[in-house]
């Protein structure tokens, strides 16, 4: 419905402005009718027309040269209706301040990186790009990004983990308006009925989960899917136990994985966690089939909509004196290499998106945590439900801090190890041993 409306609008505009049509399609289009008249004169004419049409099509596809100078082309993966609308409005407002317009491109999260790489090949990258933060390393490695210092943007006043996530080889390439993190979300009704307090340590977590596993309800739900999502959910447990991504063989890492898979082995979590992404986890929690879940702040709006009575606490750690260490999530704004003028325009828009007020607004709408320390403190007071997330972001870590672009390979190897332990009969020692070997050989 919407698509067709857009289509009609496009056609209408096309008719209204013949001048634009000539500019964008080039002269070959006007030549076509004369050629068509001679179509029956011979096959070569046909071939010539075919070639002309193909050339025009190819010319249109490139698009890079004929960009309107007052338009900033932006690419992100906020595809959900609400987030997309809110992000749209913020971009428009920021661009409007500088008499610019925004042409927003929007693709599902798993198609963003392939698109970015394709655009990089054609040297037609957008002017402003928001990528998932662990992917920043991959994009930066292509050499297509520009340093933020060129535009007078720097990481002062931001949480250190966020600056690290935006840096590649010691240089700052991106900053985020807001970040997210994981926490333990629990069903308050079930907890009150069982007379339980939300857990703070691993032992308490096990005990509470055991207590709450009844019939078709599992104590806890999390995602152990075979991708970055599975690794990201495990990382808080790995890190708070003293394990590191650079040393997957360490006894600390093995212990953490033992705890993680133990939740499934003891039956307090479903074995299906290996096939659940974080949306599936939310579904289980909403339908009451899980009393607790590990999930991010972005799910809170769904929980509110569904009317679940829930509470949020930081992710439990091995003991009370250890602070949780969660990986930082969220998208980072970067400026690809285009032309000096376009880069400067994109930087102005990005700079506006990073202002304290914009940050607060976006974070409130999207249940993110503002990336600036000062803004986050104010936010914690304004939105108490987000306080556990704000606390965690202060100690949050960039996933790529130690590994840089190698993170992708290590993350995949670790996700496979988690799967092998939970779904297969592999011991945590063996699975991590293999992961370290695979990750090492691909680094």
């Amino acid at each position, binding site marked *: 419905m919407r698509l067709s409306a857009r289509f009609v609008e496009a056609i209408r505009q096309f008719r209204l402005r013949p001048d634009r049509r000539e500019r964008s399609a080039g002269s070959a289009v006007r030549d076509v009718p004369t050629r068509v008249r001679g179509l029956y004169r*011979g096959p070569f004419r046909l071939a010539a027309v075919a070639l002309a049409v193909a050339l025009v099509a190819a010319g249109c596809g490139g698009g890079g040269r004929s960009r309107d100078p007052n338009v900033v082309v932006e690419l992100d993966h906020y595809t959900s209706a609400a987030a997309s609308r809110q992000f749209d409005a913020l971009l428009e407002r920021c661009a409007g301040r500088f008499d610019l317009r925004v042409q927003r491109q929007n693709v599902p999260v798993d198609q963003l990186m392939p698109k970015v*790489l394709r655009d990089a090949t054609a040297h037609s990258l957008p002017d402003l790009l928001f990528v998932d933060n662990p992917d920043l390393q991959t994009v930066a490695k*292509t050499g297509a990004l520009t340093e933020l210092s060129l535009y007078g943007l720097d990481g002062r006043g931001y949480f250190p983990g966020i600056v690290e996530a935006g840096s590649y080889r010691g240089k700052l390439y991106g900053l985020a308006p807001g970040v997210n993190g994981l926490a333990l979300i629990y069903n308050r009704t079930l907890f009150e009925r069982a007379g339980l307090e939300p857990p703070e340590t691993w032992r308490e977590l096990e005990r509470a989960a055991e207590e709450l596993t009844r019939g078709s309800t599992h104590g806890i739900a999390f995602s152990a899917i075979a991708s970055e999502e599975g690794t990201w959910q495990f990382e808080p447990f790995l890190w708070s136990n003293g394990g590191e991504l650079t040393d997957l063989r360490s006894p600390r890492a093995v212990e953490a994985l033992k705890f993680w898979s133990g939740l499934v082995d003891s039956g307090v979590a479903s*074995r299906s966690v290996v096939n659940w992404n974080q949306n599936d986890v939310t579904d289980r929690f909403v339908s009451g089939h899980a009393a607790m879940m590990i999930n991010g702040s972005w799910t809170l709006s769904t929980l509110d909509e569904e009317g679940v009575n829930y509470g949020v606490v930081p992710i439990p750690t091995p003991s009370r004196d250890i602070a949780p260490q969660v990986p930082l999530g969220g998208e980072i704004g970067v400026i690809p290499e285009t032309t000096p003028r376009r880069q400067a325009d994109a930087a102005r828009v990005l700079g506006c998106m990073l202002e304290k007020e914009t940050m607060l607004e976006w974070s409130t709408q999207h249940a993110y945590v503002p990336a600036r320390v000062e803004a986050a403190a104010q936010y914690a007071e304004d939105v108490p439900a987000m306080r556990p997330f704000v606390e965690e972001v202060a100690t949050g870590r960039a996933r790529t801090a130690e590994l840089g672009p190698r993170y992708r390979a290590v993350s995949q190897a670790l996700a496979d190890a988690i799967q092998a332990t939970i779904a297969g009969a592999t011991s945590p020692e063996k699975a991590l041993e293999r992961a370290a070997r695979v990750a090492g050989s691909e680094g």
Partner: protein
Amino acid sequence: MTTASTEPTASGPLSTRGRRRGGGGRERLVRWSFVLPVVVFLLLFFCYPIVRNLMMSFQEWTVASFYEAGSPFVGLDNYVDVVTDPVFGTAVLNTVLFTVGSLLFQFVLGLGLAAFFQRHFPLSGVLRGLLLLPWLLPLVVSGAVFRWIYDEGFGVLNQLLLGLHLVGDPIPWLSSTDHALPAAIIANIWVGVPFNLVILYSGLQAVPTSLYEAAALDGAGPWQRFRKITLPLLRPVIAIVLMLGLIYTLKVFDLIMILTGGGPANATETLTTWSFALSFEEFDFGEGAAVGNILIAVALVFALLYLRSIRDSFRREGES
């Protein structure tokens, strides 16, 4: 949907080939102009990607290659890396098991159903139509539905098995390394049966009933009739069904991707899903291309076998 034979009878181009050579240059041009679109299409959409893929597999293609256009030639390194990767063995074994398992059951069930529908009974046409359904559904839909059916806790399959007391504990269909591959194969069998049914059924229709009547008069039982009449006469059709089925099954990607994404722990990783993962998840396009080419080579061998079997059957037709 009724009895139209789907077997190709391509006697036209073969018999007229080379009959009228020459003619004016003008006429020749006209003739070529009919071929040209196909040639252009094939060059653009088949040859170019394949050649490009081949070249890619001999280059080191990483994310850096995309912007700064540096993709050094590395010879057979990608192939060596791929073959020595521990996942390679798993992927090959899974591909073989998946293909053989799917084909075997698809064919046996398809043949059984085709023979069954040879008899006419009330509603047989409607039933046959319904059996085509799995074939008409997009694989994405089938995959999503099977994901629900297989769910360990709430899936209808486990509820059924538990209810009938066939199993004591729910079976972790998609979440255990032992069960995931069989589960994927079962789903694929369901998808593939209609294809076998349709082609084999039309093959059966072509067998003259008089032969059966004669055999019955000679005292041949049902099994003997099946073995001595149906199977030999159906052989060309069987060859085609198996060959096409093989090529279709080798390249199955979407179904597995939706069911398990190649997991858990690579338990359902086939060459196709692995090639995708290498290219688009690990961004090692050289190795991804190498796996893709290995798969193309295997499929090509079977495609050539298929073409030869068609040619042979035409020749036999020509002789008789």
